[in-house]
C-alpha cells in the first residue's frame, strides 16, 4: 500500500495499524472492538461504517477517515473563492447532480456513492435538501470549519475507484495569508476557482482588486511547483464563473452557454475547450485578468460558466425558474483532468479541433 496521507492535516498515516472506530449516538467516536464470537461477515459489515484515525487518538486534531479510504485513489477537491462567491451553492448543486443516479453519468461509466455515509447524509441534510428540495438560500459557511464537507466514492469505467473529498471552506478563511490549519492545498488534486461575477471590474468600477483567495491558493500551491522557472502548479484547476445567470444579459457568450446547458450537453466534455476559450475571452474583456491566474498557472485548467440556482434569492429563497445550469460540467472536467475520466474526453470533436 502506498503512503496514506490525511487529506485534512496531511499527516502520514500508519494505515494498517490504525484501529477501527465507530460513531456513537452522541456523535463521538468509540473504539470498535470485535467480539471473539463474532462472525467474519458481521465484523466486515461493521467495518463498512467504521473509521480510522489519522493519528493517536489521545492527541488533539485527530481526523477520522472512512475505514476503506486507502483502498481507493484519493482525490481531494477544494473550492476556492471569496466570501459570497457562490462556492457552497455550486458545490451543493454539483454533488446533487453527481449523486442523482443520472443514466447519463452511467454513459460515462461512472458509479457514484457515498464514501462516508454519515458525512454524506449530513451534507445532504444541511445543503442539498434545503437548496434543491426547499429552494432555500444556504447560509454562509462558518470560518471555523476546516474539514472536508462530503466524501464520495467514484468508480470509473475501468473499475478503478477514487475516494473523493470535497473541501468547502469559508472565503474569510481561504483569504487569510497565514492560516496554518488549512492544509488541503498540499495534496489537493483539483481546485475549483469560483469567480464571483459581481466582484469583477465594471465600467463604473474599473478596479476591483483581485480575489485574495485565488492569490492565497496559488501562493500555497507554489510549494508543490517544481523549482524551475515558469513551472506550472501540478494541480487541476477549473475556473468557474458562478452565478452566471446574473450576467447572462451582459454578454452574449454567457447567455449562449447557459442556453445550451442541458443534461446531455453537461456530460459531453468535448465542448469544454470551446467554453474555456469563451470564458477566458469574457474575463479578459471585462478586465478581470487577475481571475485568470489559476488557468494560467496550473498544469491542467478549464474554464466554465455555471449557475447553481438560475437566479438570485429573494428573502432567503429561490423562486421562479430555479434550476441548476451547467454545474456538473466543471466537476466532470476535473474528473477528466485528474484521471477519474479519460483525459481524452476533453478533446474537442475532430472537425472542430481541426
Amino acid at each position, binding site marked *: 500500500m502506498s503512503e496514506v496521507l490525511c487529506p485534512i492535516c496531511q499527516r502520514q498515516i500508519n494505515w494498517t495499524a490504525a484501529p477501527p472506530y465507530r460513531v456513537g449516538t452522541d456523535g*463521538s*467516536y468509540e473504539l470498535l472492538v470485535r467480539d471473539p464470537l463474532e462472525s467474519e461477515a458481521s465484523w466486515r459489515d461493521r467495518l463498512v461504517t467504521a473509521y480510522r484515525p489519522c493519528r493517536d487518538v489521545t492527541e488533539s486534531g485527530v*481526523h477520522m477517515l472512512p475505514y476503506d479510504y486507502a483502498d481507493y485513489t484519493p482525490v481531494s477537491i477544494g473550492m476556492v473563492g471569496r466570501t459570497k462567491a457562490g462556492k457552497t451553492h455550486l458545490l451543493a448543486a454539483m454533488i446533487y447532480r453527481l449523486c442523482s443516479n443520472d443514466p447519463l453519468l452511467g454513459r460515462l461509466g461512472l458509479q457514484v456513492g457515498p464514501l*462516508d455515509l454519515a458525512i454524506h447524509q449530513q451534507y445532504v441534510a444541511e445543503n442539498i435538501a434545503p437548496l434543491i428540495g426547499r429552494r432555500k438560500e444556504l*447560509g*454562509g459557511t462558518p*470560518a471555523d470549519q476546516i474539514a472536508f464537507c462530503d466524501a464520495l466514492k467514484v468508480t470509473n469505467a475501468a473499475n478503478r475507484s477514487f475516494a473523493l473529498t470535497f473541501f468547502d471552506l469559508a472565503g474569510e478563511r481561504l*483569504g487569510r495569508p497565514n492560516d496554518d490549519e488549512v492544509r488541503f492545498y498540499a495534496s489537493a488534486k483539483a481546485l475549483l476557482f469560483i469567480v464571483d461575477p459581481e466582484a469583477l471590474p465594471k465600467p463604473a468600477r474599473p478596479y476591483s482588486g483581485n480575489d485574495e483567495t485565488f492569490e492565497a491558493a496559488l501562493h500555497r500551491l507554489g510549494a508543490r511547483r517544481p523549482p524551475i522557472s515558469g513551472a506550472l502548479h501540478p494541480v487541476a484547476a477549473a475556473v468557474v464563473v458562478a452565478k452566471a445567470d446574473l450576467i447572462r444579459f451582459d454578454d452574449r457568450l454567457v447567455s449562449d452557454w447557459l442556453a445550451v446547458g442541458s443534461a446531455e450537453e453537461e456530460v459531453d466534455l468535448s465542448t469544454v475547450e470551446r467554453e474555456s476559450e469563451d470564458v477566458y475571452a469574457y474575463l479578459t474583456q471585462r478586465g478581470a485578468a487577475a481571475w485568470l491566474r489559476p488557468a494560467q498557472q496550473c498544469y491542467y485548467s478549464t474554464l466554465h460558466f455555471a449557475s447553481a440556482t438560475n437566479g438570485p434569492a429573494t428573502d432567503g429563497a429561490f423562486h421562479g425558474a430555479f434550476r441548476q445550469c451547467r454545474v456538473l460540467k466543471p466537476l466532470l472536467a476535473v474528473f477528466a483532468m485528474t484521471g477519474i475520466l479519460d483525459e481524452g474526453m476533453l478533446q474537442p470533436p475532430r472537425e472542430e479541433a481541426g
Partner: protein
Amino acid sequence: MTEEVHQIRYAWSESSLLGARGMGPVESSLPEEYLLTWDRHLRDHVWAAAPEPGFIFIVRDDVGALLRKVATTADGRPGSDAHVLLCEQMTAQDALGLTAWDDWGGPAGEVLPWSALQPLRDRGLEVLRARARAQPADRLAAFFAALLCAPGDPYTVIGEPDPLALTCALGDLIGQIPTFASDESDDTRSGLPTVVFLRKASFSPTMATRRRLKPAAEPGDPGLSCFAGAAVDAYIADGLAGIAVLRRGHAPGSLAEARQWANAMQFAPGVIADPARLPKLSEATLDGLTGPDALARIQSAAAAVSSYDLMHSVDPGLPPAIKQVFLEEALKRACLAPGDPALLQWLASFGSPPPEIIDKYLPADFDHLAHVTQVLLLSSGDRRALLEREARNLPVAAMVQWIDGHAATDPEGTLAVYSALCDQAPRASQEDLGALFARSALVAAVRTISESPERASILLVTLLRALPGTALSPDVAEGLAGQADPVLLHALDTLVTSPPAREAIHRQVRLAYYRDHHLHEPATLLPEDESADPKAWRLPLPSAFRRQPSHHRKPS
C-alpha cells in the same frame, strides 16, 4: 483597560474595519492596533448556530471577552451578527450575569464603564441562579457526578434546554464558573471554552477531544454520585449558602481530587458536611449519622463553623448523640475563651452539662470558670466541689481577693473558694495574712454569703482558727476588734485568749452596744492617753498594722 469595557460588533460587510470582505468587525471602540489582535482571537467564534442568541465567553491575554451572536437574514442570505464586550475585570461569573444585558445588539462604538455594568451583572446573575436552582435535581446531580469524574477536562453538553443555567449550576457546585459557549454547531475546533453546548450531536471528520458530558443513568462512581446528589439538594434548597461549606481554594482538577474533596465534604455518603443542614435532614438520614465515623466528622465540622452557625445547627429533632457533639463543641468554646455571652446563654438553655465535660475543657482562668459554671447552672454541689478544687491552686492572697470581690455576685462560688481558703489557711504567708487582715478577715464577704450572723461567725471562726498559730496575735486581734463588727467580735471572742486582746474585744463589744442604743460612751471607758482625741478609737484598721509588732504572745 482595567475599568473600561470595549465593544466590537461583527457582521458581514463588503469591507470591514480591517478592510476585508466578509464577516468581520464593522463597529468598535477599540483602537485599530488592538482590533487586529482581538479579531484574531474572536473571528472563529462569531458564527452563530441559530437565530436565538448564543453566548461565548473566552479569556485571552488576561482579558475576558463575552460574545453574543445570532443568526440573521438581514441581507437575505443567512448569516451571523455578533456583539462583543471586552474587559480585564470580567470573569466567567460576570459574563454569565451580563448575558442579560439589555443593550446587546445596540451601538458598539462607545467605551462603557465597568461600574455601569456591575448592577446589571448582579441582577442577571441572580435571575440566572434562580433558573439554575429550578433544574430537576436528579438530572443536575447526574450531570454534576459526571463532571466530577474528570473535573479538569473540557466538556460538551448536547441538547441542553437552558445552557446558561446549567453552566451556572455546575460552576456553583464545583466552585468555579467555567468559560462557556452556550450554542455552537460544532465542538471540534481549537480555542473553544471549557464548556460547549451543542443543540444536537454533530458529525465531523475531526475527532472531538472534549468529552461529552451527559447525565449518566448508571452512576459511574457511587461515592461521587452520593456526594453530587447531596450537594445538588443543598444547592437547590438554599442556593450558594446551601453549599458554602463546599468552597475551598480551588476547584478539584482530577478524579482523585474530586474523590478526596467529596469524601472530606460529607458526614456520611450522601450527607454534606454542613452542620447547618442537619436540621433539614430526614430522621432516617440522621440515624445514619450516629456511628463513630460520622460523629467524628460532625465534630470536625462543628469545630470549623462560627459560634452563630453552631447555635443554629442544633435542633430538638437531632439524635442525642449528634446534639451532644454540638453542645460539647459549644461548651469547649465557652470554656476556652470568654467573650461570647450569647453562646453561653444558649448553652444554658440546654440545662446543666455533666461536670466531667466541664472538667474536660476546664478554663484556665478561675474567674471564667466561676462565670461559666454559674451561667450553666451547674448543680450547687457539683459547682462547689469543682470551684473548691480549682481554687486550691490559687495563691491564698488571690483567694482572699476573689472572695472579697465576688461575695455579692456569686455567694455560692465565694463559699467554695472560702472553703478552699480555710483549707489553705495553715500555709498562709505573712503577705497572705496581710491581705486577709487588710480586708478585716473577710468579715464583710462572710456576712454577705451567710444567711445569719451566727453562721457568719462560725465561718469566720473556721478561717481564723485555721490560720498559722502566730497569725492572730494580740495586736492583730486588737486591730480586728477595732473594726467593731459584731460578727468579727464574736469570732474573736471565741478564739482570742490574750487578756489585753480580750479586753480590747470586750471594750469594742460594749461600744457596739452603746452605739446600737444611741448612748454616749462613759468617760471612764476612754483611754487615758487618747482623751484629747475622742474619735481615736475610730482609726482605720490599717493604722493598727502600721504599729510596730509588740511580740506579745497569747498565754497558753
